[in-house]
């Protein structure tokens, strides 16, 4: 059996990832970078690719990047210890945000005009 090679890494940054880019939807326009109020994003050296989340540890979770994205390619990922819990009143079932569940997406938009 071939021995697997292991690599030394610095520890992962916490939170691991403040936002996730959908590589299918993102065309690398970099608009989000100029909307980030804590300047945590960096253009990808490879043109057309999603920006690099250079400083996820400094992300303030304002959502400015996600709101600015014309392609809706940015998913916000709350730090694990901030993920809210709710209970469906009728069934008593419990759910958490940012993880998979059987519920359908609630697409009713907020009142922002």
């Amino acid at each position: 059996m071939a021995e697997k090679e292991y690599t030394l890494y610095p520890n992962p940054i916490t939170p691991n990832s403040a936002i996730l880019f959908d590589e299918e939807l993102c065309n690398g326009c970099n608009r989000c970078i100029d909307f980030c109020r804590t300047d945590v994003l960096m253009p990808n050296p490879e043109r057309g690719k999603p920006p690099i989340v250079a400083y996820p540890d400094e992300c303030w979770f304002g959502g400015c990047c996600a709101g600015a994205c014309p392609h809706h390619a940015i998913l916000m990922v709350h730090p694990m210890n901030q993920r809210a819990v709710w209970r469906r009143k009728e069934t008593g079932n419990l759910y958490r945000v940012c993880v998979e569940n059987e519920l359908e997406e609630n697409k009713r938009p907020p009142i922002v005009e």
Partner: protein
Amino acid sequence: MNNDIETMRGMKWQYPVNYGKEIESEVDVLVIGGGLSGCHAAINAAKRGAKVAIMDKGPIVRSGSAGTGVDHWHSVCTGPAATITPEEMTEEMCKMPWFGGKFCIGMGKYITCKESYDTLMDLEKYGVPFRDMDDEFEGAAFRDDNTLIMYAYDYDAKTCVRLKGGALMKPLLAQEIHRLGCEVYDFVMGTSLLTEGGKVGGRVIGATGLNIRTGEFVIIKAKAVILTSGTPYYLWTFSTELQGGAAKFYDPSYTGEGQLMAFNAGAEFINCENNKKSFSGGFMRNPYGVGDASNSWYGCPIVDSKGKRVPFVDREGNEIPEDQVFHFGKGIGGMDGMFPKDFPERIRNGEFTPPFYADLPSMDPLERRALWGIMVGNEGRTNLAVYKAYGKAGFDPDKDMLQVPYLGSDAYMKTATWMAGLTTPVYWREMARPGCNPVIDWTLKTTLDGLYAAGYVIGSTDASGASTTGRYAGRNAWKYAQTVDQVPYSREQIEKEKARIYGPVTRSDGMGWKELKIGLCRVMQDYCGAEKNEQGMKLGLKWFDSIEEQELQQLCARNPHELARSVECMTHIGVGRMILNASLARKASCKQYDFHRLDYPEMDPPEWDKYVTIRKTEDGETVAGELPLQWYLKEPYAPTYAENYDKYCAL
């Protein structure tokens, strides 16, 4: 792993780096800090004919406390339906501990009460919608059928307007600023004020800034400068290691460069000793993203795990009947409902069984849609991070009850349960409001000629507080700018400032900014914590001196981002000294400041009913003095708000 360190290893910095390269401009009015206050200041100077520049550490399209949105607009005392006068509201606000109690700067509050409605009308012109034009809320108790304005919190007072376009406010203001042709310096952090002859106490004639992406050095000459930056936070606690920047309510960009540059230029300050236990600590929950009954969530019933409703009480502790929650008739602040004082005991006695839930489904449908659709749809950090992220996971306010965090019983004192401040240590503190404010006159000029201030800097918090005082300062700064000439800056002052800020990029190895930042927090925790004495605070000053000579000289920045964070560490030392010096000079304990001196334990002796002032002298010494409370209603000013406003409002 989501964030692949390997991808970033050795990646080239994607912006051209030019440390120290000078970018120069000359304007009539320079605004430092592009939040709501700064934007209104810039717009109001520019539309009267001033050439204006605006500088911000972030992008003005989204920076500042309302950058991610705002759901309400307070103090419309001159609005069409208001039942409270500016005088009444100012007086009421000056009693509230949240606004600083006896240390509240009432002059700013009065300006807000006078101009809040007019400023809202300005915003409507810039495109910010707030009226219920499509009648979605027809029949709702909070809607006025004549004006289609929707009120919040107190439906009798009618002084707070729900903003159904509040999430768009900053982008629309930024658009107006560009339309007026202002010079915009996004991602440029202000670092110092330029003064005539480079002298401390001299007339302010411009400012310097650091481009946080390129490292370039920005020099802007101006006839008048308006300081509209944020409050210095992150002085006692800083940690990105648990939940990143989400750990705190305030943006990590709020570090106090504005206050420090004004202090270093010689401006006199008050309220520097005003700090309290941090309400967001280092373990805050997602704001407005957990079961809650405050601000945006005001009026939402909270029930225990068996469905029993928790009563709310008003500020005096009287229980509010369920049908009176929106009718308290005072119109002040975000809300009046709180948990009863004996709530923790009642939980322990078994009367209520945690966990608690925000019972959205039980609400009146229009109230519920207003709460989750307008308020949570528009308030800061909720549009994307709560409304849309939760919707994506299937959360439905018509069916679901959001859980209140499971805190210790004693922590359920505030209805804003996401703050969790009561569960954090007492020495984890934060600047309180108003905190670190330059002394101002009725034109909102500081004690330095050419330097004006507005917004959080002068304790005028909240969206309408920041916007109205920015508007007022914009008018007055332009009025002043027309009376003076540009003067050349001192080359020596520029060279000194460059030597100060670029040190960390001259080293290829050394200490990183994070370790230094956390070390500086430890100094504040230990020597300027919940209990203070002269010995401790003097040690704090000594350690800042020592850190400046030792660790700061080892600080290493490998790119402009790290350099900006390094400069924030320098700011930390400077603002920390301001706080320590002011705290040393207040030789009495003080309840409103949550200020406890072990060596002067007597609480609020009457002779200390005054502000402590601090100021830097020309030879660099910090000297303390005093200023009477409500100095703005004493000589040389008139004794009433109205007379002074009429004389100085520049309208």
